[in-house]
């Protein structure tokens, strides 16, 4: 299990120390991504998926703190690296695309300059050469090269997101982290962005895709990880997970996705996600779970794996029978 | 922060401020402390000062000593007594002016923000023009024309700060107006005047407190400025700014106490109110973001 993985998150713990209590945003989560693999992390708002992703790139700011665990990138622990060393990796080997394209670009600078800057900072290129390269990567993401002198406010949301992607992939990183990159865009544009991301996967870039939309994740991912209330509840290859979801939460998510092609009853999961300052004892999903019993209410389940398919549920045995 | 349809009392925000554990309480207490010292000084002036501030009580230019805590000035008046009694003038002028400003600015701001339309446009244009003009110069013009007296100074200062209250109240009213509970009140058939008085105004209480503190601080400096220019009181009434002006030529000769104490008083009193205002404003924005 050691070698072969591009990114290994081991037992990550992230807490937010707020005035009203300590929030356990990410509670002992472990995940791995292989080179060239698309892993989607799915969950409701507040389940910790974004926090986990940001921990990789040190974008957790106070009152949040990474309290425990390791994040290995190509075998090296990112969390214990010196800042100078870490900055060489960020932007160069790991790229990040954020959710809202309207606010994630500097409004005062031309997009060409912002892209070129990445080349100049990490590769020491001169401006002229860097702008050349910027033009290339712009075309690669589907924006005409002559837009290189445009300001962000002169472009649409979809275009801006492409620019953000261009900046993230400019130096051909090994891992691309995308945090809900299509949530703020309309469905048609969403599809083109997903296509673009997939094209990078095909060139060998691993993709860590954060979303609340299980259906969207299922479209393109190789593997899916489901998070709930700061914990990882299920993980597996996408076909297996969708065909045979083992965790009641995953099952609930799948049941709540409308189906265009046939009549299907949509059910929502009753209840609300727990307050992470004082999560329920035992399995965190138990208040909303149909099949929860006393064990579920007392003991936290551990992650058990059958091949590539892992689940954290006391009732796995019963579910496997179904 | 949920807003109820029931009207709230005006005093509760003040009490909440003093007791809640948000940061900045230290500054708030320091500011309050300073202000209270000066208010006591003004109220208990006859008992605190040993001499009549308007009369010559000793030789002039005496440095600070046990008999004269802050020395004597050019005419032989006791500086300490003048400081203590001066606080009455300053507080009187500033509070009258501020209350007058509020009495005019707040209602106008409420109506303008709530009703909108032509009234709003005209008033806003008017107030914005005044706001952009240097306060001191406008005050000088009014005070010069009316003549020197504490009441006239108060009027001049009041005039200058009306736009400040107007803008603040108008802005807040506009943002409150768009909130759902106002629509609900409308739907219930509650008349406009009642909505303004019982529902919008109490929610503005905190803002009013903040603006009050900060504008009082500013008004103290403006009053001192007018007084320094000879436009506030006539001698022998004690006023800090005026004493500063009179003492200026002697300051550079080494008789520092004529100037140091009046100026320090102005600064401390203004600072007291400023600290209160700043602390309150910080807590206001914190409370709104939680």
């Amino acid at each position, binding site marked *: 299990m050691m070698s072969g993985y591009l990114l290994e998150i081991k037992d990550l713990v992230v807490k937010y120390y707020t005035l009203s209590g300590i929030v356990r945003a990410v509670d002992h989560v472990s995940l791995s991504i292989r080179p060239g693999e698309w892993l989607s992390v799915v969950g409701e708002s507040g389940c910790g998926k974004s926090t986990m992703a940001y921990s990789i790139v040190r974008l957790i700011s106070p009152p949040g703190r990474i309290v425990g665990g390791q994040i290995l990138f190509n075998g090296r622990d990112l969390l214990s690296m010196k800042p100078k060393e870490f900055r060489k990796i960020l*932007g160069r080997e790991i790229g990040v695309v954020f959710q809202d394209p309207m606010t994630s670009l500097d*409004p005062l600078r031309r997009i060409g300059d912002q892209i070129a800057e990445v080349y100049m900072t990490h590769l020491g290129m001169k401006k002229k050469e860097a702008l050349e390269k910027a033009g290339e990567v712009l075309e690669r993401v589907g924006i005409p090269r002559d837009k290189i002198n445009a300001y962000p406010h002169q472009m649409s949301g979809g275009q801006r997101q492409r620019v953000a992607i261009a900046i993230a992939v400019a130096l051909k990183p090994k891992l691309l982290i995308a945090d809900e990159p299509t949530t703020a865009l309309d469905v048609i544009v969403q599809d083109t962005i997903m296509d673009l991301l997939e094209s990078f996967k095909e060139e060998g870039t691993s993709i860590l895709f954060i979303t609340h939309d299980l259906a969207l994740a299922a479209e393109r991912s190789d593997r899916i990880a489901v998070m709930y209330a700061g914990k990882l509840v299920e993980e597996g290859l996408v076909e297996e997970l969708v065909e045979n979801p083992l965790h009641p939460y995953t099952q609930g998510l799948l049941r709540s996705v409308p189906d265009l092609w046939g009549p299907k009853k949509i059910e929502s999961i009753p209840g609300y996600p727990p307050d992470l300052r004082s999560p329920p004892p035992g399995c965190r999903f138990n208040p909303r779970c149909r099949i929860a019993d006393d064990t579920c209410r007392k003991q936290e389940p551990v992650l058990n794996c059958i091949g590539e398919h892992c689940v954290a549920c006391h009732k796995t045995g019963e579910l496997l029978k179904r | 922060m949920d807003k109820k349809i029931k009207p709230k009392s005006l005093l509760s925000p003040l009490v909440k401020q003093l007791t809640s554990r948000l940061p900045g309480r230290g500054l708030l207490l320091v500011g309050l402390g300073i202000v209270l010292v000066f208010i006591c000084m003004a109220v208990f002036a006859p008992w605190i000062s040993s001499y009549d501030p308007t009369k010559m009580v000793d030789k002039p230019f005496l440095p600070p000593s046990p008999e004269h805590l802050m020395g004597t000035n050019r005419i032989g008046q006791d500086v300490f007594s003048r400081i203590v009694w001066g606080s009455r003038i300053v507080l009187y002028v500033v509070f009258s002016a501020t209350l007058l400003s509020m009495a005019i600015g707040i209602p106008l701001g409420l109506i303008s923000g709530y009703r909108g339309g032509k009234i709003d446009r005209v008033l806003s244009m008017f107030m914005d023009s005044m706001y*952009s003009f240097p306060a001191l110069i406008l005050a000088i013009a009014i005070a010069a*024309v009316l003549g020197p007296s504490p009441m006239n100074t108060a009027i001049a200062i009041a005039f200058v700060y009306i736009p400040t209250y107007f803008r603040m109240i108008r802005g807040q009213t506009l943002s409150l107006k768009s909130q759902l509970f106002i629509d609900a009140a409308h739907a219930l058939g509650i008349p406009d005047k009642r909505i303004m008085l019982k529902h919008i105004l109490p929610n503005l209480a905190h803002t009013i407190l903040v603006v009050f503190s900060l504008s009082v601080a500013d008004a103290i400096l403006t009053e001192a400025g007018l007084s320094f220019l000879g436009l506030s009181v006539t001698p022998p009434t004690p006023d800090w700014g005026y004493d500063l002006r009179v003492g*200026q030529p002697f300051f550079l000769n080494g008789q520092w106490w004529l100037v140091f104490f009046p100026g320090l008083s102005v600064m401390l009193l203004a600072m007291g109110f400023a600290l209160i205002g700043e602390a309150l404003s910080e807590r206001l924005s914190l409370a709104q973001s939680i």
Partner: protein
Amino acid sequence: MGKKGLGYYIVIRALMIIPTILILYTIVFILLRILPGNPILAVVGTRNIPPEQLKHLEHLAGLDKPLIIQYFDYLWNVLHGNFGVTLASPMGVPVINYIATRFPATLELAIWGFSFSVIIGLVTGLIAALKRGGKIDTGMRLYSIIAYTLFIPWFGMILQYVFGVVLGVLPTGGRIDPRINFHTITGLYVLDSILTGNIPALISSIKHLILPSLTLGIVLSGAYTRLVRNNMVDVLSMDFIRSYKARGIPGYKITWYALKNAFIPVITLMGLQFAILLGGAILTETTFSWPGMGTFIVDRIEYRDYNSIQGAIIFFAFFVAVISLIVDVIYALLDPRIKY
């Protein structure tokens, strides 16, 4: 985004300040003309003077015409540079003459004072924003409160005492050593000494400028610290800052980009606070015997010379309106999102 567009933008903005100027003019006019008292009698005191002389003086001041006529007359005159004549000591001198010599003095003081306050404000605000939440942040904000509650004359006198008397390195009053042979072109002494290549004048005028502008600058910087800090804190929490960090851009560059973004609203607010600057300038001038518009107004008040006072204040109103126009244009130039 063309040069021609900029011209139109300026013109439209200029048209928008006209109502402001008119309102201010009206307010000042009403204040000084309609308020109780006959200005002429106030000047000459309540002695009995022959009615013909009174009428003559009233005519000199334009007071014998109906108020409305006076209103428009004066406005028309002002637009042509005629601010009336002085009413007392000396009498009959066109006010514009005084404005022409006094205004540059105030302007020079204001520019230097403003520059100091901006620099100090930027530095303290930036430090406070970068170290927000900590002791340094509180310290800077405390500085800001202390600075703006300083009473200008008091602070100025202290500086005069320390640097002028105790240390004896800087002069305590005036604009320049009167013994120096000096020609003025613009009225801004520093600029003029550079233009005429007059080194002793340059040194002397700078020396005379330091204390008053520092006084004004420090007191004003108090308001700016808070402004810069709050804007910077806002900008630093924006999404694109997070994007920059994720690109591996070094911290000092990110701070610079944040500053540029924060700078635009800050500089416009600073420009609009120029009005406060002028108020402070008057007190500074009086403290340092600086021959500017402030000391002019104060002197004229003693003589009850309402014409001069009115002229000076109207002039200020125009000036303030023009400043806000300039600030608008600068804002448009700095922010690429503004279309013209």
